[in-house]
């Protein structure tokens, strides 16, 4: 379930976006599932509805969710073939920066590989 970490330096809407994506990847949200409405989500997380709405808009633009007027917001069918090259490049760049930082801290490639394995295991729900 999505949650907000107040001590994180990430804006709340980004945390929410990430949370929904994580839930989808872990399978606790599946394509076709209905998401709480902006109002419900705001109340659930005791959070500003504007922030929730902003997160939903980004998720819609990224085609992660879809809002059907008068019905609700749903998780979109995940198309494994379709890849958003722009987003992928952005992530690659971020990863690269992280690796530089890690290298600077004397983290070995082996360790990083191990982290990757752990992360993927986590995604599959351990």
């Amino acid at each position, binding site marked *: 379930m999505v949650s907000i970490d*107040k*001590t*994180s330096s990430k804006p709340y809407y980004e945390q929410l976006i990430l949370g929904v994506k994580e839930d989808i990847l872990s399978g606790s949200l599946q394509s076709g599932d209905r998401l709480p409405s902006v*109002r419900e989500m*705001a109340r659930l997380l*005791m959070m*500003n509805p*504007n*922030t929730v709405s902003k997160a939903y808009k980004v998720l819609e633009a990224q085609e992660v969710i879809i809002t059907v007027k008068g019905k609700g917001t749903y998780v979109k069918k995940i198309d494994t073939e379709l890849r958003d090259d722009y987003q992928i490049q952005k992530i690659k760049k971020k990863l690269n920066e992280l690796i530089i930082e890690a290298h600077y801290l004397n983290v070995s490639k082996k360790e990083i590989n191990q982290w990757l394995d752990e992360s993927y295991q986590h995604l599959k729900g351990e």
Partner: protein
Amino acid sequence: MVGRKLSTLEGRIDMKIENLEKTIDHRVILKDINLTFYQGEITGLIGQNGSGKTTFFRTLSGHYELDTGKIMIDQEDIQKNKLLKQKIFYIDEQYNFLSGYTLNKLLVFYQNAYASFNKEKYLTLTKKNNLNPNLKYRSMSKGMQGLYKMILAICSNAEYLLLDEPLDGLDFIVKKNVLGLLLDAVSENSRSIIISSHNLNELESIIDRALILKSNQIQLDYHLETLREHARKIQMVFKTKKVPQVVKENSRLLHFQGRVVTAIFEHYTEELKALIQAEQPVLFEELPLTLEDVFEANLTHEEMNNSLQGEMV
């Protein structure tokens, strides 16, 4: 398309405060207040006890006369068009008439005061929360009173809700209930909500924007999501005991502990990081930043200055 956009912009409802000033008993309480409150935005008014939050609300709601300045709603002066006051909801915590009346009677009062009062919603909400209409306001518990005031505020259908410490003294369950009502109200129609509090923690996830009231003025005006994105709290140790200029210029120091400097950078960038790294800090660590830190940095340091300059009142 363009034409439509323009018209919605023009039709945008907001409250604009210009050069507001208020002196009580020869003491300046508020001065140089220039602000706009937008619809759909939740604003937190943060200030220490005695900083003038209540005076600000009383002035906006017309309980106090303005010394100078103007308050405009949709470009109309509320001092000229008294009907505009229906767009503002405010209950004075200290001086109000609620206590001797039954809820039924209060409903009648508020229906008369606010032309677009939503009676249906009022009845649903009071019933849902088991508020007996024949009960006198004063015989309700503090929590119930808080809840009731929130129901009145929402059902008034006023566009500007001024809420003075609406969560103060409420237990956790009631607090959640009151906040829930408020969040629902914001999701349903766009209104402007201004909440005063000295407790930042409980407002942190609710508000879009925070105003800091201090030394009679609005000193700071933050959009919190922007702040979360750009501000960082960093703990550093430098070889020499002097704090490098780049740190001094770009941050507010939170505290010193021997060599350890903790500072808040409101506009943290990669370039800034590189500049600090160039000073070769022995320790350089990002710490979780809470809004309280930001406000502490802003509030306490001024105070130190004040006492140094002998400006205490």
